């Protein structure tokens, strides 16, 4: 009963606060924080149990790192290496160094300083990415630079998780190899060299299993076509790896991150992503609510100047470092400001790492309370920073610089849903013409066969909105709907037309009425799936019956023209998915018309309908 009450309370707070925060442009992370602040400090509805909730919800972080890993395709990382290592790496290192120095100057010991520095160097991926996408700044140079830095920070979390336990104040300087030996590892009783072997073995095991074992297993599960079992398998994978890592004394986040990277180029990537994503979202949401509920506002009212001063200082220093890096890397003027103001806040990872560091005693509880509040305030101020950029800086530098900034290799992607006989031809044709095509299909046999001929297909039900988003439909220029189920196809087109108004939609239709349905649903172009093939065979039949091949070709073209004309002309007669008498009458009239057209030709009259290559009429003979 208690559990249900708590669940209801937390969920209700989230359901109310998050949509409102989103509407106000604050982003979901702030929404969760605000929800937590309301049910905690403000209304006092939840109390001491928030720590337990937070502990439980931290698993969301493990899932997040799995997803981060899934996103990190080695090829993409390689392409971005300069910005990741240069821009991103420098941002993390320089910012960490400055904050550590300041902490030392304030009289904190160096371990605390380094821990704080690392944690505050991170920015809020969730808030910034959402804002960049919403405002359409993602493709600008500043947006791309921000993305690179956020990605570098996400990756930097992994070494940070490894480093933080080493910073234990007065910690036992364990002679053995690395970070991992915290917690109650089951192998702690083994001799050092054996521990090392077990740890390395576990990592090698994850990589090997990811390469060889996981794919066939997922293929087998996917073939059962039971969605919930696939979801269960995905969760089992993540939880299993977390447990294994705990067992050998490594960070579970590190392990799942690794598993994510290993699976990032598998065909199940998008499916895993969209299966795990809701769990991650909810758990992280719960985590942020718990953080919000735990914020101590007495601190703010007790020492408002210190708290606000710290928040302002963090924003100021981070922005300064980013601005300098922006100049160093020659970003255009206004993009430097977007980059600097946008990433100035501390991020949600800070809460995670605070909890982690607190657990080891790297940071003491009083400091944690202050810093949690400060970080939350910097995040709350982020929308203000974006407003400063949008109203203050962007309009002033409207000239040249933003124009030539669009040098990002924006090779309009095509998403093809359904790789049956129809979709295959479209996708292969586009690929051979050098376009990058993302293909979705939910038939494992099709995927395997295509893999054999070197065509990469992603597993998943293309009618699921989250999968479409994961496949990058947001950036795609073209969407080809080629499902072989009529109703699903129409729904899919309607969904894409609503959600991605900028995307051109090409849809496979089953018959004439389906053409109308798809057009109503928002398809820009439709083709009846068997029309062209039937007409080609009809032409062949005419040749077999003795017609000259070119004549048969011309007749087929005329038939097609007339048929398209009829198709369009009858659309207004077709309404409400039904066919009334007038439609039938019109249809019949058009068929009679077509028959006349074809016959007149045979009769060899000199008429409008068949004007090609006809000698002039012989007047003497006619007269």
């Amino acid at each position, binding site marked *: 009963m208690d559990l249900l009450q708590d669940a209801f309370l937390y969920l209700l707070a989230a359901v109310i606060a998050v949509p409102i925060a989103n509407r106000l442009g604050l982003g979901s992370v702030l929404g969760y924080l605000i929800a937590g602040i309301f049910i905690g400090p403000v209304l006092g509805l939840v109390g001491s149990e928030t720590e337990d909730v937070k502990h439980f919800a931290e698993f969301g972080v493990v899932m997040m790192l799995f997803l981060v890993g899934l996103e990190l395709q080695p090829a993409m990382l390689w392409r971005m290496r300069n910005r990741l290592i240069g821009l991103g790496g420098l941002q993390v290192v320089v910012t960490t160094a400055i904050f550590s120095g300041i902490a030392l100057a304030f009289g904190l010991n160096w371990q605390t300083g380094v821990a704080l520095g690392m944690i505050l160097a991170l920015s809020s991926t969730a808030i910034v990415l959402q804002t960049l996408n919403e405002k359409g700044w993602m493709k600008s140079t500043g947006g791309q630079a921000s993305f690179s830095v956020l990605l570098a920070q996400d990756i930097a979390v992994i070494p940070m998780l490894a480093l933080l336990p080493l910073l234990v104040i007065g910690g036992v300087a364990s002679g053995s190899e690395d970070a991992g030996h915290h917690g109650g590892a089951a192998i702690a009783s083994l001799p050092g060299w054996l521990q090392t072997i077990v740890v390395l073995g576990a990592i090698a095991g994850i990589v090997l299993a990811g390469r060889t074992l996981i794919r066939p297993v997922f293929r087998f599960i996917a073939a059962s076509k039971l969605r919930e079992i696939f979801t269960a398998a995905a969760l089992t994978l993540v939880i299993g790896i977390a447990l294994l890592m705990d067992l050998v004394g490594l960070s579970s986040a590190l392990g799942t991150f690794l598993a994510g990277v290993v699976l990032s180029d598998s065909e199940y990537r998008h499916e895993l992503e969209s299966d795990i994503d809701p769990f991650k979202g909810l758990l992280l949401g719960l985590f942020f609510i718990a953080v919000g509920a735990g914020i101590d506002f007495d601190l703010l009212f007790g020492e408002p100047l210190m708290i606000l001063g710290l928040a302002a200082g963090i924003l100021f220093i981070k922005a300064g470092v980013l601005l300098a890096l922006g100049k160093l890397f020659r970003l255009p003027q206004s993009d430097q400001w977007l980059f600097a103001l946008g990433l100035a806040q501390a991020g949600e990872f800070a809460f995670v790492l605070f909890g982690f560091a607190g657990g080891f005693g790297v940071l003491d509880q009083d400091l944690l309370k202050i810093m949690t509040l400060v970080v939350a305030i910097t995040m709350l101020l982020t929308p203000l920073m974006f407003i400063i950029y949008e109203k203050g800086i962007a309009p002033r530098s409207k000239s040249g610089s933003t124009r030539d900034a669009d040098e990002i290799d924006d090779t309009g992607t095509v998403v093809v849903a359904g790789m049956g006989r129809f979709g295959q031809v479209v996708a292969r044709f586009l690929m051979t013409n050098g376009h990058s095509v993302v293909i979705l299909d939910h038939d494992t046999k099709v995927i395997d066969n295509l893999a054999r001929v070197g065509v990469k297909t992603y597993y998943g039900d293309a009618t699921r909105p989250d999968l479409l988003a994961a496949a990058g439909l947001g950036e795609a220029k073209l969407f080809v709907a080629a499902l072989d189920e009529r109703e699903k196809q129409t729904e899919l087109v309607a969904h894409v037309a609503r959600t991605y108004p900028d995307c051109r939609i090409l849809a496979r239709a089953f018959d004439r009425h389906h053409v109308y349905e798809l057009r109503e649903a928002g398809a820009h172009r439709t083709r009846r799936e068997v029309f062209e093939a039937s007409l080609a065979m009809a032409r062949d039949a005419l040749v077999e019956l003795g017609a*000259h091949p*070119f004549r048969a070709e011309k007749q087929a073209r005329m038939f097609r023209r007339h048929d398209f004309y009829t198709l369009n002309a009858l659309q207004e007669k077709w309404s409400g998915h039904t066919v009334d008498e007038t439609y039938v009458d019109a249809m019949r009239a058009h068929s009679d018309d077509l028959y006349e057209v074809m016959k007149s030709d045979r009769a060899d009259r000199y008429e409008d309908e068949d004007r090609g290559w006809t000698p002039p009429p012989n007047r*003497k003979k006619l007269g």
Partner: protein
Amino acid sequence: MAKVLILFAHPRLDRSVANAALAEAAEGIEGVTFIDLYAKYPDGEIDVDREQNRLVENDVIIFQHPLYWYSSPAMLKEWQDLVLEYGFAYGTGGDALTGKVFFNATTCGGGREAYSKDGIHGVEIPELLVPFRRSFLLCHMRVLAPFVCFAAGRGATGGDLAGHARKYRYLLEALVDERVDFDQAETVALLSEALDTVISAP
């Protein structure tokens, strides 16, 4: 024995009178290959390699076509544009056709007198066919005077369709038998009016 290739272009063979008659006349002569281009390529996609091989295999190339707007139907123009490639037919290394023989065999609705300085068209047929002549000369070929069937249209007065067909077949057989004097055939005005001069008896 020489090999003769007739490249025939008429988009509406079913409505053709004169060309159908000529096509029939060309049937069944050993050594003569008759290619209906519109039948071979109903969608207009010409197989260039195949066409070039055909040219290499034959000694005499004939364009047989009706006269449309003082020229040939569109397919023959497309054929020339694609098949007579640089490096194959002309230009550096383009000597695949050197020494072969070309002429037009064309049908027109108007009578003989219509195609003269004082006729309604104001020109002689060979003047109209200069683009073909120049093209194949550039391909290092010998270009004979055209074989023209005047008054070939349906119901045209003074036409002698059966006569045209008979003469066409006579010419084709002589070409295969190598009984045509090319030097003479290059210089006469119209091949169709000089068969007795250019062809020697078997």
